């Protein structure tokens, strides 16, 4: 049943992750995926534009969102300490996890302390990043995904292809077959409402039985300790309300300063994400409310680093930590629209993933290193980003870091790399006039087997990629300097 899965950027064998180019070829050949994606991204794009159009103060909200996130990133230590204090004061427990392993250990430990063999989960990309479900399975604990799309891909043994609509690559007929097989649902039609009802019945029992619920967090307020989950289906409300124990995993960058700041983010997120004025359900909770019996009587908040402090250390790249996971940049990206999420081999796909993934896992792994190149730098992502992350700027910055890493950090292999060697030679030739003029002459002579009618249609060897879809202009018989010299005598004496 398990589909063959290539390692992703956050798995143990992340170094073996294929490059974007390799994976994109596979995705592009999948016509069903491309049809689903095309429909989905176009629909959401148009809806988002309409939802934003309605807001006369959208640009001012974006600016406030950007500035609040900047304030947090510059003073993250202080806000984390305030958050810890507030959550503890409200009766919750705060845990700190340096990496995925530590976070998984903490969460499994809490589940075991309550003899939970099953836990219910509301969609959380952070737990995808830490591979929590696999870890729990190894500890004998079954994690039930309760988001419809997450349930679909969990039952299919697949991975998400979109932050917001993870099963965007599956159609109704495929889902019906899956539910028939895995949920034992009989007489099921392929009507989406029928399929949804089958999931409702199956999961209701899980919600009522579960001793432990696990969630991510969209935001957590330092001032009050109020954590928030933004969702549509009600599974988030179920997971954060019904089980007696709630564990929330959040990246350290998700903290926001004050309760009032929700007024900014709760306007930016729904419209950017699902293109709605407001998403159906948002839960805000502050520690535990034992006296009123409302919700869990035990709450644990796990603060996860897992590479985030590495991102923070890059002054230019740290703006990626402002991301509120709306997925607007995915839906407008001409590259994502064609390849889908799987080609990025990361739990964070699309333009934001292309800047977040390589920074989180560190430069120097071929797969993640290829992501900053998965862009035409058209800038559409920057334009729609609700917190104004300048994604193209960071993409270019990271391309530079990847290249420098290859040059400096690559050792002997780096020095022998043909691209590096070619660039080094070129730098020398371009900095010396005699060498440069010599090279021009040599190229003029050397191109004769390739040039036809002033154009080169196909370059040999590793250069062939350049001419795959365009001609290269042949080097002319005379350079400008030669022409000038012939016309006016020596260029130094020319009257310019």
């Amino acid at each position, binding site marked *: 049943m398990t589909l063959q899965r290539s390692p992703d950027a956050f798995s143990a064998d992340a170094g073996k992750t294929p490059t974007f180019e390799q994976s994109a070829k596979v995705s592009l050949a999948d016509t069903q995926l491309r049809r689903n994606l095309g*429909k989905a991204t176009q629909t959401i794009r148009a809806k988002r534009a309409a939802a934003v159009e309605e807001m006369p103060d959208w640009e001012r909200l974006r600016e406030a969102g950007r*500035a609040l996130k900047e304030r947090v990133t510059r003073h993250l230590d202080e806000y*984390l300490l305030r958050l810890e204090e507030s959550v503890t004061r409200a009766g919750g427990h705060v845990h700190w996890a340096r990496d995925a392993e530590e976070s998984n250990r903490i969460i499994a430990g809490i589940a075991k302390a309550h003899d939970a063999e099953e836990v219910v989960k509301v969609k959380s990309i952070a737990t995808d990043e830490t591979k929590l479900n696999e870890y729990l399975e190894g500890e004998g604990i079954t994690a039930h995904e309760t988001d419809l799309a997450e349930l679909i891909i969990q039952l299919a043994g697949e991975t998400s292809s979109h932050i917001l609509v993870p099963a965007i690559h599956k159609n109704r007929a495929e889902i019906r077959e899956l539910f028939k097989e895995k949920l034992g649902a009989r007489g099921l039609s392929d009507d989406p409402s029928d399929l949804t009802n089958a999931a409702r019945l199956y999961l209701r029992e899980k919600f009522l039985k579960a001793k432990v619920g696990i969630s991510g967090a969209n935001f957590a307020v330092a001032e009050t300790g109020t954590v928030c989950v933004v969702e549509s289906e009600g599974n988030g409300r179920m997971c954060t309300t019904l089980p007696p124990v709630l564990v929330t995993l959040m990246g350290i960058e998700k903290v926001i300063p004050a309760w009032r700041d929700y*007024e900014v983010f709760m306007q930016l997120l729904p419209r950017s994400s699902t293109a709605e004025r407001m998403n159906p359900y948002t839960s805000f909770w502050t520690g535990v409310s034992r006296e009123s019996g409302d*919700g869990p009587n035990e709450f644990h908040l796990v603060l996860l680093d897992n590479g985030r402090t590495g991102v923070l250390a890059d002054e230019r790249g740290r703006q990626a930590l402002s991301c509120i996971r709306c997925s607007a940049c995915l839906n407008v990206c001409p590259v994502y629209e064609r390849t889908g999420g799987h080609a990025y081999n990361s739990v964070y796909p699309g333009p934001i993933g292309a800047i977040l993934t390589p920074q989180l896992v560190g430069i120097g792994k071929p797969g993640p290193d290829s992501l900053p190149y998965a862009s035409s730098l058209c800038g559409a992502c920057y334009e729609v980003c609700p917190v104004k992350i300048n994604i193209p700027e960071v993409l270019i910055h990271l391309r530079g870091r990847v290249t420098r890493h290859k040059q400096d950090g690559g050792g002997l292999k780096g020095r022998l790399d043909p691209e590096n060697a070619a660039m080094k030679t070129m730098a020398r030739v371009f900095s010396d006039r005699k060498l440069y003029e010599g090279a021009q002459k040599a190229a003029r002579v050397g191109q004769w087997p390739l040039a036809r009618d002033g154009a080169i249609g196909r370059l040999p060897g590793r250069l062939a990629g350049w001419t795959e879809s365009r001609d290269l202009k042949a080097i002319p018989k005379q350079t400008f300097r030669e022409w000038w010299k012939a016309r006016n005598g020596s260029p130094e004496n020319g009257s310019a």
Partner: protein
Amino acid sequence: MSTAREEILRRVRRATRDVPEGERPEDVAVERGYRKEDDAPREEVVARFAERVAEYKAEVRRVKEADLPEAIGENLKERAIERLIVPPGLPEEWLPGGVEVLRDDEERRLTNEELDRSDGALTGCSLGIAQTGTIVLDAGEAQGRRALTLLPDYHLCVVREDQVVGLVPEAFARLEETVKGEGRAVTFISGPSATSDIELNRVEGVHGPRTLEVLISG
């Protein structure tokens, strides 16, 4: 204390060495130039609220306060609600005859199974937001614990006209005291639960109440 905590804090401080020593968080300017209050006339704000709640496929009716009990009775009858969940603090006169009332109170809290087996819940609310058609519950008077409005398949919510605010920032300002004081949980409800996970076709009603009805009284 825990070494993970110390190490993460140390990493954060090292990563932000470029931030000048004396800079405080408040020194990073945040321009709040967005709209804070709706200056439209009250009637317009309430009308917008009604219109936008309805756009989420929730049934909305505006009734006079005096007619509220009758209207509640009509809604419940139409949906054939027999076992009704009632939170503490709900006005007694709202309760129609002919339904079995299941009260959730401190002495006797309803179990999740009882809530699951009921037909619906009748509550008030904390606020309504016109801009987004959102109903806000804060576990206060006439609203009760979150589970009461989550497990039943039907939710009838009464919103008084004076509870409706114009814009999202007005709502967060009004809720500030509740959150900072008692730390009660807050839930935003904008239409019935929904999913678009299957081929982006919107399906109303996944895990919460599949039917949401709203009576605006004033």
